[in-house]
């Protein structure tokens, strides 16, 4: 590469990631719900005219690489109109499509992705590319508040939105907004959050136009291709450090919450000179409970695992994915088909797929991959009616231990791999809900022993001051996070129901139920695995 291109692509990369970051700031500012504003459960990205990922801001790994599927679904949907065709007649300006249908470009129902075409504002009227963002909405209807409790039917999980326009040419398509609002427990919040997603798209379109203007369209497009080539080249460089061959790994999901246990994810990883092939074809069939992952989630997990091993890490764009193939078999737990429920696929199964990918990669990169982390997000929902008559829904994911590695002990009480959301402070929680946190501490001794110790999990015990309902969507209650080498595994998590007096009752990994006044849910999250034991 000559100096000019080396400089140009560095400058363009900064500019494009900058646009994605600005979209994220605009979304965070304008959003209404705490889940987006405070827990920062969203991602923003830019695409070229062919729908190839150009840049993505570093928000949540679980959204990595799964947004191109949303863009593709929107472009191919008869209900979202075809932007490409409209581009030639100039009709598509200021059109915004949304989608959450897991089987048409979505992942799980609370994640609503918005896609909009970006056009030039200047004399030229051509299509520049697409902007997109995905945000986790805190309620999208369904059987239980928060739309994240274990169900056995996609319909019970919430409202399914196919790729569909919600605004076109600055005109709101009101029936669509009304339909979405009528199907959520918190319609005003949904409306506010969707507006925020539009504001983020607007920011992206405007800035993308400026950048194309600065470079000139022809040069811009040439440089985008150079960016893809650069990322692909960096990824190939990274592949050189891997051993070539076929590596097998598998991982177990505890259960699906609906009677099926020990669900196996099987991977055959082929490392070739300039190709990584992740073949999940032999994984178990999809299950009745809501832990099924759609293909886009599986791809995200595989891409994430590879990027973790990269040093230097290539800029995240379409070029990174060119040398990574992900093979899945439709109808399996890693490539579910309608009408399988999927709420937990994104938050729980995705973590296991990462474990499996890293287990295979560890064989190709001996000594570099740490022990397994907690491998769950410990989703907890508590809802009911407060003494003042208002309904409340509390949703949280709880951190655990990270796996120990060659460099250091695993981090304790920290979210790992596919998520990185913040907690709800105890003082904020107790102010907002009729709940009391009795303990929030590290779970001593839960990290696996080894030359480096696995990180400890967390104890969080919450007592209710009113009768309430709860939902748990957790993993690693049966099969613990594995150590690396001969390091010890971390401890499994434990969910307990604590009565006012008497012995506590152990709860299943995935369940829902009632809490009487004064009863408590006690969650102990898994510790990370240890890194090789000391030799004697």
């Amino acid at each position, binding site marked *: 590469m000559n100096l000019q291109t080396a400089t140009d692509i560095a400058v363009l990369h900064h500019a494009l990631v900058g646009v994605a970051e600005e979209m994220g700031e605009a979304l965070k500012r304008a959003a209404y719900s705490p889940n987006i504003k405070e827990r920062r459960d969203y991602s923003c990205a830019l695409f070229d005219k062919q729908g190839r990922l150009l840049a993505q801001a570093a928000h949540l790994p679980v959204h990595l690489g799964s947004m191109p599927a949303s863009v593709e679904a929107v472009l191919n949907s008869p209900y979202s109109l075809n932007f490409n065709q409209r581009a030639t007649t100039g009709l598509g300006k200021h059109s915004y499509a949304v989608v959450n249908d897991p089987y048409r470009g979505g992942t799980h129902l609370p994640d609503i992705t918005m896609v909009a075409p970006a056009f030039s504002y200047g004399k030229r009227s051509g299509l520049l590319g697409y902007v997109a963002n995905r945000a986790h909405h805190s309620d999208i209807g369904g059987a239980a508040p928060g739309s994240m409790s274990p169900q056995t039917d996609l319909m019970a999980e919430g409202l399914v939105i196919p790729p569909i326009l919600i605004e076109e040419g600055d005109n709101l398509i009101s029936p669509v907004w009304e339909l979405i609002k009528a199907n959520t427990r918190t319609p005003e919040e949904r409306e506010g959050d969707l507006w925020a997603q539009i504001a983020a798209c607007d920011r992206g379109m405007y800035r993308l136009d400026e950048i194309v203007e600065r470079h000139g369209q022809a040069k811009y497009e040439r440089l985008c291709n150079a960016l893809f080539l650069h990322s692909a080249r960096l990824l190939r460089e990274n592949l050189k450090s891997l051993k070539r061959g076929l590596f097998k790994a598998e991982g177990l999901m505890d259960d699906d919450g609906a009677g099926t246990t020990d669900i196996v994810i099987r991977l055959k990883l082929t490392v070739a000179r300039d190709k990584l092939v992740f073949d999940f074809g032999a994984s178990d069939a999809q299950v009745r409970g809501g832990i099924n992952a759609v293909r886009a989630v599986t791809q995200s997990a595989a891409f994430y695992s590879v990027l973790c091993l990269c040093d230097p890490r290539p800029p995240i764009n379409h070029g990174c994915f060119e040398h990574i193939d992900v093979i899945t078999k439709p109808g399996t737990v890693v490539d579910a088909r309608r009408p399988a429920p999927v709420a937990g696929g994104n938050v729980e199964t995705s973590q296991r797929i990462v474990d499996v990918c890293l287990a295979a990669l560890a064989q190709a990169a001996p000594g570099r991959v740490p022990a397994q982390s907690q491998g769950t997000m410990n989703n907890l929902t508590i809802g009911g009616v407060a003494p003042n008559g208002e309904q409340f829904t509390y949703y949280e994911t709880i951190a655990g231990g990270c796996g120990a590695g060659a460099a250091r002990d695993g*981090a304790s009480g920290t979210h790992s791999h596919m998520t990185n959301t913040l907690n709800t402070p105890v003082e904020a929680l107790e102010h907002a809900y009729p709940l009391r946190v009795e303990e929030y501490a590290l779970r001593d001794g839960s990290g696996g022993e080894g030359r480096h110790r696995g990180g400890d999990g967390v104890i969080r015990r919450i007592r209710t001051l009113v009768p309430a309902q709860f939902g748990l969507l957790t993993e690693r209650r049966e099969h613990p996070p594995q150590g690396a080498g001969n390091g010890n595994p971390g401890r499994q998590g434990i969910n307990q129901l604590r009565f006012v007096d008497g012995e506590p009752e152990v709860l299943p990994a995935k369940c829902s139920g009632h809490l009487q006044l004064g009863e408590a849910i006690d969650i102990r999250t898994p510790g990370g695995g240890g890194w090789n034991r000391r030799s004697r």
Partner: protein
Amino acid sequence: MTRKDTTVAAIDVGGTFTDAVLLRGRVLARCKVPSTPDDPGGAVAEALQRLGGASLLIHGTTVATNALLEGKLARIAFVTTAGFRDVLAIGRQNRAPEDLYALEPKQRAELVPRELRIECDERLEPNGSVAVRLARKEITRVAEAVRVLQPQAVAVCLLHSYANPMHEQALGRALRKLKIPVVLSSDLAPEFREYERSLVTTANAGLMPKLQSYIAKLEAKVKPARVVLMHSAGGWLPAEIAAIEPVKLALSGPAGGIAGVRHALDAESIETGVAFDIGGTSTDVSLVTKTPLLRAETQIADLPLRTPSLDIHTIGAGGGSIAYLDAGGALHVGPESAGADPGPACYGRGGKQPTLTDALLVLGRIPHDLKLGGEMALHPKLAPDALKRLDKSAQPKRLADAIVRVALAGIERALRRVTVERGHSVEGMALVPFGGAGGMLACDLAELLGIETILVPHDPGLLCALGMLHTPASRDLSRTVLRRESDDAFKTANAVAKELKARAETELRDCGLRGPFKTQLTVDARYVGQSFELNVPLRKSWKTEFVKAHERQFYFDRGDAPAEIVNVRVRVEAKRTAPGLPIESGKGRPAPVGRSGHAPVYEREALAIGAKLKGPAIVTELSSCLYLKAGWKLEVTGVGQLRLHR
């Protein structure tokens, strides 16, 4: 400030230089001395002596910042409610953003090891009522447990203590008998969110021994000058208060820079500016509006410190940032830095890697005979050799140009993000470069951002110290009230505000300051159910103000939906003694003193009021260097500042 303080010195300690200015009557004296990192007070005392001594010394210090950055805190015991001993270890349970794709994410800084965390059997409800009483026996047990551990300081943070300080105060009385510093969260930062409150309380305790000894030693060295310290919210604190609340000094130096930029903008009647300070390893940017933008917390070494701070954003790219080509062939500048030692290759101290400063030198934006701080000579021949390490076949000028472009792209990206985050647009603002290198990139950055005006203040390299001269004493206090509007929120907030105001005034008076004081009362408000707050004035009509602010900031409001007051904030300011700085300028038509590349070089002190220059040109002065790009014009304003436009 009392009448006796007729000579005021302001001294700001930086990584390489300690900058000092002194105002005696209408005469301004300045000097720069090399910093003495092992004992920063040494350089301060020397600078003051060179300037001839003062009666009041306003001091910007990095002692607190560096101790936080390096994790060098005292041995602290941490006392908290039973069940929550690990609150600092768990934090907000997320990993640092740069660790998002790390195979081995780092453990967050815990500040207090497990054996020094002590649980106390007591419990308050969110409204402050007592759920579990703190027994006298328990107080004795806790005090004894602390005594046995022999810590250098104790931090106490109990759940919901912002709503009722009784239990913390009872523990405080017992712990103070141990004759070590005790910090109560209900005194220092009575705001809800237990992790942030515990963290700021602990950090403060951990800084106390070091800062107390630093301040005491400094006072002895500079006698009879009275020492006061710049705090993060842009005012100064008497030494007595700074010594017990050292965490408030985290942005001590940069706060002076913002005060200087505000003063520079005011002199030209410009409303809003983007302050821009390029240092050795990092660049600070900040939006400077009419009323200072304060954040409720500031981030130091990934620690969210809950203490009111000016809104300053730091980017990991500076003059010492190293340029390299990655394995895929793309050019990067930073985040690795050559720092101050060895520094850029052209410093001639053994640095071999190409840096941004070397690129600027090769491009002729830094005259080869410039002496840094008036003393340190450059080694211009070393710069092209360093650049050639990137690509032997390329011309050094082309390499330098590439490095500057990539560095600017990174700074532009960060600046745009910060402004969008704060809900502003940079277009139409003035760019105010300061620090040693700000002026060398100002024209390029303005062009990239669509900014039309650049304002270069007096002595840009001494701006932090100069800004401190314009800064009044101020005391910022706050407390969480968490009351809904239906529950007499205004009445409660008003009562709390009165109490805080009285406390702030008493404290300032106790330090010898005379009234009348200027007071600013505000509340952090939000809609019930939200988890972020907006700061609005404390008035009966606070709800209306809040709804308006919400619309302005987030582009929508929820009208009549119930709102609540979360925190009450009080700022009490002593009268501003803002000295009119002398206007210094040269005479006659500008005449170049030399050339650098294709640009004539002018000395700033020789430029007369009203003098005009056209780019390309370079203007040098003691503390910094300005590159006026082709296409830009410069004019010396009526107060002697440089105003650039396209």
